[in-house]
């Protein structure tokens, strides 16, 4: 109980910039929930839970809460939305991006300290760049969906898994070097 009070005190005493960053996480959570609903996924209980999780991300961005939200959100989409491309994928992905970036920035600095304008600007620009890349991926995915014939069997999956495994090996090697 005391921890919750401390978190609430942290929010109440936070600087205006910090509050804005935390609220961007909440905006991302609401955007994802709306996109999920528009894509026909989930149910009122899942939407309510996502909104509550979004509020908890605002309250404790430096804990496991943002991770819990992201995993729950991805699982909700997987379980609730039929496979394939959907236009609501884009706002959903951007919503996840906002939740992650907002929580990461909020957890990086003391809540009571004002954020320099240059930091806010740089994070906004970078988020825009990633959003643009995401839009490109979303567009390519839609294009592929339109031209895909369904042939190829398990080959794309195997290639993809091999790619992920390769990236993971590279990452572990890099960690070992450091």
């Amino acid at each position, binding site marked *: 109980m005391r921890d919750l009070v401390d978190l609430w005190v942290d929010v109440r005493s936070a600087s205006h910039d910090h509050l804005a960053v935390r609220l961007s996480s909440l905006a991302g959570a609401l955007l994802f929930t709306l996109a999920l609903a528009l894509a026909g996924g989930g149910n009122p209980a899942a939407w309510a839970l996502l909104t509550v999780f979004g509020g908890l991300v605002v309250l404790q961005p430096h804990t496991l809460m943002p991770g819990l939200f992201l995993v729950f959100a991805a699982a909700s989409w*997987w379980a609730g939305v039929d496979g394939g491309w959907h236009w609501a994928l884009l706002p959903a*992905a951007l919503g996840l991006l906002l939740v992650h970036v907002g929580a990461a920035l909020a957890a990086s600095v*003391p809540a009571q300290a004002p954020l320099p304008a240059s930091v806010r600007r740089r994070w906004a620009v*970078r988020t825009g760049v990633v959003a643009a890349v*995401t839009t490109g*991926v979303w567009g390519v995915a839609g294009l592929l969906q339109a031209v895909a014939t369904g042939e190829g069997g398990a080959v794309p999956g195997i290639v993809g898994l091999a790619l992920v495994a390769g990236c993971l090996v590279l990452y572990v090697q890099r960690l070992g070097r*450091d």
Partner: protein
Amino acid sequence: MSTARADRWQATPALVRSLVLVLGAVPVALLWRRPDLLVLVAPIAVVLVWSVVTRPRELPTRTVGLSHAQVREGEQALAVADVQAVAGAEILAAALSPAPYVEGVPTERTRRVDDADGLPVSHTSAVVDAQGPPAAGTWRLVVGVRATRWGVRRVGPMQLAAVGAWGSYRWGPVSEAALGLRTLPQPTVFDTRAPAPRPRGLVGTHRSARPGEGTEFATLRPFQVGDRLRRIHWPRSTRGDGQLYVTASYADQDTHVAVLVDAHYDLGSSGGVRGRPSSLDRSVRAAAAVAEHFLQQGDRVSLRVLSARTPLTVPVGTGRRHGVRILDTLCRIVPAATEETDPRRVHLGVDEGTLVVMVSALVSPDALVQAAVLARRGLSVVVVDALVDSQDGTVAPSAERDALARAAWRIRMLERDREIRAIQAQGVPVVPWLGPGSLDVVLRRLGRRGRAAGRLS
């Protein structure tokens, strides 16, 4: 978190969650043929790759200091941390741990927020953008603090941290040792028009009982050999019997003011420079005011602190620097009771003609005995009662919740009244500290007594 563990770059929960999400969603998407999941986690994957590629490796060196070695109560100082610029670090942050009587100076408008313990949240943190070329290879973090009570105030420890791109890697928080900020007491407003009794020195602003070179008019008297021509009073000389008259004056002299501060007890809780003072707050500020006043007049002032913990002394001296030395000594007072002091063995460095101003809460028998012994030696002793509140002129009632403790306090106050009457009966005036003019009546009375004694002898 241990310092050794904190003093390296580590993955943050942000990196871990993006890794978990990507590694969880991508195989599921590939195995279950769900390309929509790939699109969903695409921005997180981009952030993950970006973070890993730009991971910082160098550890920054840092130094921490204060902008001022000493300040007055209520004044501000800056806690400054210089952190070496390293590749990959994008944001630097510093935060000071809360400390008694040290508050942060917010850089934007804030409202008071109390924590779970009812204490106000202090805005003692700062963030700087560590991108771009730094000045002299280091980034400077500045946190404004205000010391709200005299004493050696603890500033810090300061926690320093840095994060890389997307907040995925963090260095710190590394705790730097706390710093001591000497906070000089803010002297309360004090002024006295009464002269110091029985001045002894050769120069000063007090009127001597003896005629001599000075500015205070004494009388007109016939001219004598050796008188200066500029002292001839021409109106009287031309009007009278053909004799020359000169203006005689009293000599200007200084005095030795020995300030004794009773620091055996600190009664009441201190609210800082803007709050309700404790008894030791009143003692220290009154002593500072008395010392500054007499030093400004050109008198010689010495200081002695009566306490078991800090037997501090400042020898007699004069001038502005001596005043700072006295304030510096006052700010190092730590209350500690001692009841076994033999006043005859304590050498206070006071001689005949010294004005002794003892500032005391008059709770410790030691201080009362000292005052009585000094008065018996024929010195001019004034005791300033620091337990009386200067606003309402009364002693604050006990704040204890225990009825027994409140009763004990009332009994002690009755005893204290009796002790004060006893010491007054021995000729030691006891006055409450009420700001300007507190000592006027007493000093005049002591001056008259001194002159009468001089005539009798």
